[in-house]
């Protein structure tokens, strides 16, 4: 028998796994065995540690050393140098300016973060119920069941000011209270909404994978408060690991008697099961989600009746988001006052955000509400990649909006974002640099919503399609005067008339980009120019003869043979035949191929001729 002296925590969140974390784990097993120290080291697969961009990452205790961008080839060094000789491997540590950062808590990425929901994510082994209990797990449930009435527990949540983290920001206690107050109906349900579908959001996945018992405990506390004895986890089928982890957590909790009949010797009985979707974004909407659990198409239904009155199989139901439930145990154990001390007047506590896009530290962060966008993007996120400038930030996914550099000092909370035309949404933050075309981005989000619209109500089904067609016209150089107004008019109608949240919010990206980047729309329409050089029809390639060395590489790589010339005369692109594949741009060794905004005069001329010819034919 021997004691373990090293805890090796390998981040096995999806980001690090996609970067090869599992291969590294295998390699550790091999190298530890080769060196005969298998029994001295605990290898623990944790959930997401947050800084996905540094992945694969790992932390080694007791020192707390943080290694980043580890490859299987590095494992031997870590074992031989660090584990055997006590010399941490400096080259795998993070470099911040001229400083080498050794310890996880010194990594700047973590500085402004306060972890509540993510407290255990990346710290404990999500496969182990014992490790969750060691951090104080299930004490909140025990205390609620043994020492509080449901109403007392609801009051704590009320005083904490917790609001739904899935998007809407609806106060959590109100949902619970409504179902609690319905004493006539004996059968009630609690559903955990894990149908995270907002592009750019992955906090629910990370929580379900990294700390499943926390979500289960939160669900049981909610169930006790409202008088439900059955719960459902609705999780996207795209998240197989999250599904496995929750199923396992349920089994473990049952085995220990934390779930099932008479939990903690009280009258409270509870059972939960996992239901999965099959690839439909709209199922994140609570009424659609309920239809899906019932085995139907995930169509939303008009509200009222709200699910709290008539939900799953017609029974009173509360649908809470994963992150919302993840906050519950900590609020109970540390108190409403503590939670409410963080955040702003109307948005209390912390929020998990997923930082993505053209930003240095992509990943998962948890910060107090009210932090400014600037702090979030430049301090926590480390700023823009390369020498690029910040242009816009998209918050709240396809339901949200884009904000600009003028808004960087906006405090991030429900009200402030909404006032500026964006929204909290589930917390996806996509940062964009100056190379992005905002009209194109808006088109992209619209395309997503058109694809995901369930088709049940016509404003969403037809209105969004109309908006997409206008955007496609604008980005292909066929925009007309009045298109912008038409987009605004359609957008407002769709927002007002759609049945569910998807349609009501889908025009937001278009409306907010028109509000803040109207000049880009105008230059697309009037000047037929995409100044960011993204929309292919509104830009062209050109070879700078000063720089061209006549190597002919571009001509050889051109799929349409539209580049000609010689070493002496240099090379030229025949604009009419160019399909703008970008090969010449990519291969030029001296960067003589440039992207120019606007259509080439030859193309404009040709289009005019073709229009004339078409008119003659018509006549």
């Amino acid at each position: 028998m021997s004691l373990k002296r090293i805890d090796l925590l390998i981040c096995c969140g999806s980001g690090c796994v996609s970067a090869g974390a599992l291969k590294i784990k295998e390699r550790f097993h091999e190298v530890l065995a080769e060196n005969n120290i298998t029994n001295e080291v605990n290898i623990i697969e944790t959930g997401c540690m947050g800084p996905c961009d540094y992945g694969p990452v790992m932390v080694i205790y007791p020192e707390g050393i943080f290694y980043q961008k580890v490859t299987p080839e590095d494992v031997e060094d870590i074992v031989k140098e660090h584990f055997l000789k006590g010399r941490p491997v400096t080259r795998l540590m993070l470099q911040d300016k001229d400083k080498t950062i050794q310890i996880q808590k010194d990594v700047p990425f973590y500085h402004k973060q306060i972890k509540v929901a993510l407290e255990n994510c990346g710290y404990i082994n999500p496969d182990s119920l014992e490790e969750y209990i060691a951090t104080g797990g299930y004490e909140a449930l025990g205390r609620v069941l043994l020492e509080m009435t449901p109403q007392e527990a609801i009051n704590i949540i009320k005083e904490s000011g917790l609001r739904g983290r899935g998007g809407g920001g609806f106060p959590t206690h109100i949902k619970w209270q409504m179902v609690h107050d319905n004493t006539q109906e004996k059968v009630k349900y609690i559903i955990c909404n894990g149908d995270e579908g907002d592009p750019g959001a992955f906090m629910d996945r990370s929580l379900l994978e990294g700390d499943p018992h926390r979500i289960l405990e939160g669900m049981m506390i909610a169930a006790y408060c409202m008088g439900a004895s059955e719960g459902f986890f609705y999780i996207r089928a795209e998240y197989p690991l999250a599904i496995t982890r929750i199923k396992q957590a349920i089994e473990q909790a049952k085995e220990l008697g934390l779930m099932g009949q008479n939990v903690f010797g009280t009258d409270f009985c509870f059972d939960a099961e996992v239901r999965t979707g099959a690839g439909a974004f709209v199922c994140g909407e609570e009424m659609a989600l309920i239809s899906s659990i019932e085995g139907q198409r995930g169509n939303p239904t008009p509200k009222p009746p709200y699910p709290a009155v008539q939900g799953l199989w017609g029974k009173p139901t509360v649908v809470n988001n994963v992150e919302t439930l993840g906050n519950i145990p900590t609020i109970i154990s540390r108190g409403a006052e503590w939670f409410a001390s963080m955040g702003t007047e109307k948005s209390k506590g912390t929020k998990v955000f997923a930082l993505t896009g053209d930003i240095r530290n992509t990943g998962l962060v948890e910060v107090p509400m009210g932090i400014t966008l600037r702090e979030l993007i430049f301090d926590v996120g480390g700023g823009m990649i390369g020498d690029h400038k910040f242009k816009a930030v998209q918050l709240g996914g396809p339901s949200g909006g884009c904000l600009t550099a003028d808004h960087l000092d906006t405090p991030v909370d429900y009200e402030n974002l909404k006032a500026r035309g964006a929204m909290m949404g589930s917390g996806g933050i996509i940062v964009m640099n100056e190379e992005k075309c905002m009209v194109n981005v808006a088109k992209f989000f619209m395309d997503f919503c058109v694809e995901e619209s369930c088709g049940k109500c016509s404003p969403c089904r037809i209105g969004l399609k109309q908006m997409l067609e206008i955007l496609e016209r604008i980005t292909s150089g066929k925009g007309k005067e009045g298109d912008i107004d038409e987009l605004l008019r359609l957008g407002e109608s769709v927002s007002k008339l759609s049945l569910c949240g998807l349609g009501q919010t889908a025009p937001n990206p278009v409306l907010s980009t028109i509000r803040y980047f109207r000049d880009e729309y105008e230059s697309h329409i009037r000047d037929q120019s995409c100044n960011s050089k993204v929309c292919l029809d509104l830009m062209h390639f050109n070879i700078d003869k000063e720089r061209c060395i006549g190597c002919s590489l571009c001509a050889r790589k051109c799929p349409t043979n539209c580049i000609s010339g010689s070493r002496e005369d240099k090379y030229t692109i025949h604009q009419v035949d160019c399909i703008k594949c970008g090969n010449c741009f990519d291969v030029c060794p001296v960067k003589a191929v440039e992207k120019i905004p606007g259509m080439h005069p030859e193309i404009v001329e040709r289009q005019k001729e073709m229009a004339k010819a078409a008119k003659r034919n018509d006549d």
Partner: protein
Amino acid sequence: MKTLADLKKIREKAQEDLKLRSGNTRVKIVVGMGTSGIAMGAREVMKTFLEEIATRNLTDVLVTQTGEKGLSSIEPVVDVIEEGKDSITYGNMTPDKVKKVIAEHIVNGRIVSDYVVQTGN
């Protein structure tokens, strides 16, 4: 699982698994594992510490390692660090000496002065 006390029992037991991560330990033993330490038998010393602590079920002791400390002539070197006390450095350690340090110093709080090469930092 009927009461909070039941849960507490599981919790206390489980916390031992998290000991390395939480840093909640009474004593920290640091073995110098530089090249010269290893050449002089630091691996055996480390192993004996781990085995002894496991056999005696000492739950509040943590063993870790460090690199060269520049004390090559008296390797293997071991630091015993206790919260609020001067750290004690033992030199020329062997597995037998480890057993004695565990029995005397770690368990009973009596420093084995014969092996001490340095106190304080």
